[in-house]
């Protein structure tokens, strides 16, 4: 790796070898994805989180192809779990395999989560970042609008929207479920951006000519990432609960499958709360719901580590994070010594 110098100053040197853009991007990818995954895996919560959530993702993708669609009378009614190898989790009062029910309700749930959390965060974070940084009259105008929206009560709004629109598309449902959420995000993101906007490194970036969007993304956003990710995952759990709740209450149309529907039937149709025979009909969806939310929560906790530069530095030192290799021929002096040009 050689250096060509223009004149005497190292400030003007250029390289005499080529590094292709591909190599640069590969490097960046390693650092952006490989590193974080490594950090997550190291943390026991991250590991569990990845495994749990991964399991659900598998269920929702591969699982639906392998596991048969739930139908009434696909098997005897009220089969207990772990009795029959054909119906691992047993069957419900209509003879539907509970495992099938769980698996096939997963894709719509995942879609709802994706759509909803992305919607709420994309909108909330970008508006919050912008308005917090820009300040002044623009900020005041935007916040008046946002605060007004925010003051509309959430649950009644959801119920009304669900009742009027009767949505069946899970992406649409996800967005509706998050319609209240984004306004809250704007406020919280903004309140974190305001003190950051005056930080020295932000000011230095402005001086060095970075545009507003560059400053927001490179200097301010990294401070907020842990919060955003945790909020994202928290929003996901919120959507899980909200959807289950609305389906359970029968407000959302049953065209789409959902664990809440199973709960609804279990509760209404057979009094599963009162009989041991039908108890599993209630417990299976409950455990499924809890499993996903626990997985999401664990991931959220572990993510905090990913964004912490001290943790990243330790990983790099241990070699689990890709980085440059030290040149062994470099002298280890760190004398500031330079000669004054006399």
């Amino acid at each position, binding site marked *: 790796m050689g250096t060509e110098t223009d004149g005497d100053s190292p400030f003007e040197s250029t390289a005499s070898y080529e590094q292709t853009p591909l190599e640069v991007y590969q490097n960046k990818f390693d650092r952006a994805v490989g590193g974080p995954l490594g950090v997550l895996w190291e943390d026991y919560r991250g590991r569990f989180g990845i495994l749990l959530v991964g399991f659900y993702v598998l269920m929702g993708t591969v699982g639906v192809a392998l596991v048969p669609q739930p139908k009434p009378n696909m098997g005897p009614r009220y089969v207990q779990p772990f009795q029959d190898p054909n119906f691992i989790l047993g069957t419900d009062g209509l003879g539907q395999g509970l495992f099938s029910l769980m698996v096939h309700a997963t894709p719509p749930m995942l879609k709802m989560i994706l759509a909803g959390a992305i919607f709420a965060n994309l909108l909330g974070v970008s508006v919050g970042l912008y308005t917090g940084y820009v300040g002044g009259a623009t900020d005041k105008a935007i916040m008046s609008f946002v605060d007004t929206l925010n003051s509309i009560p959430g649950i009644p709004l959801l119920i009304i929207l669900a009742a009027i629109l009767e949505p069946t598309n899970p992406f649409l449902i996800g967005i509706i479920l998050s319609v209240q959420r984004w306004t809250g995000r704007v406020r919280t993101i903004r309140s974190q951006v305001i003190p950051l906007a005056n930080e020295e490194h932000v000011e230095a970036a402005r001086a060095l000519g970075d545009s507003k969007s560059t400053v927001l993304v490179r200097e301010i956003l990294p401070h907020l990432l842990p919060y955003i990710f945790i909020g994202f995952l928290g929003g996901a759990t919120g959507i899980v609960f909200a959807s289950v709740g609305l389906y359970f209450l029968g407000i959302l149309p049953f065209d789409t499958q959902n664990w809440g529907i199973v709960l609804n039937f279990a509760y209404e149709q057979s009094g599963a709360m009162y009989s041991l025979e039908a108890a599993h009909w209630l417990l299976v969806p409950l455990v499924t719901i809890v499993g996903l939310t626990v997985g999401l929560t664990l991931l959220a906790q572990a993510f905090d580590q990913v964004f912490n530069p001290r943790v990243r530095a*330790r990983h790099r*030192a241990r070699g689990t994070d890709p980085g440059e290799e030290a040149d062994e021929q470099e002298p280890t002096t*760190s*004398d*500031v010594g330079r000669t004054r040009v006399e």
Partner: protein
Amino acid sequence: MTASVNTERTGVASQETVLEVRDVSVTYDTARGRARVLDDVSLDVHRGETLAVIGESGSGKSTFGSVLMDGVEDPGITSGEVLYYPESGGEPVDITGVSSRKLRQIRWEEIAIVSQAGSNSFNPAISIRRHFTDTFRAHDVSREAGLERARESLRELDLNPQRILNAYQHELSGGEKQRTQLALALVFDPNVLVLDEPTAGLDLLVQQRLLGQLYDLQEEYDLTMVFISHDIPVVAGFADRVAVMYAFEFVEFGDAADILLSPEHPYTRLLSQANLGPDISLDAVRRIGGDPPDPVNVPSGCPFHTRCPIADDRCAEEKPELRADEADTHEVSCFYPDTAVAEIPHSGGPASGDEQ
């Protein structure tokens, strides 16, 4: 690796010891290895004196200050002992080993600490009055009596008690915050005051005033002060004795006049030149090359040898002990103190004997 100081040999008339530090080390386990931020230090602090501890960031000086109040928090591990001799006489108390209840009583009532200017030593969410009353409650002092004393304390530092007590920390200027911290530290009339860079970052006029007030307070209350700083001029007017820290241990120690005007350790001599002041000509200013020592990786032999202009092979291999110099005026940890005096210029101010 004991760098111990024998107080009989410093030439100061033997005085009562108020704090005895014996073979204290503080270590931390870090990802890079074991960091030793205080390396077997021993020192005696005399009652009523001002002991200046000079060192730079990362020399261990702040840790030393914390140790005096057993303030080193987990995961730092403190070994060795710190004995405190109460004014009333009687048995010395081992601060590092005593019960937490007794420690709480000692802290603040006997030994108080004022930390760096600009640090967030005040809780921004509560008023200054709350800070005082919380302290009173922790020490079983009645609120009214305590507040009376607080007002007195504040007035002594030229602060308006009414205004300060009602204020929140962000409403106070840097100098006011420092003086309030000082008032809080003095509210129980402690015997020992530990000051860690109390004037860092303060304006020149504010600094002069704060130091002047400290000087008066010390006279009036016969305080023992341990004054930690990286800035020699700040302690020059106070110090009775000076201890210089480098690489987590003491490298020079003795009477202030000796250390400030004719030190013998290369680091101390170089440090004097690296400090700017009105009484040093710009030509005499020199920087010290190299970088401060890494607690996980202290250089072998004499820890200063990598930056020392007179170091030789012996310095790289063997570690010097802190011992009295030939004239027996103070203690130095160097193999060649005479060479240091001969070859490294020193600027201690116009009255200094060996100024260029």
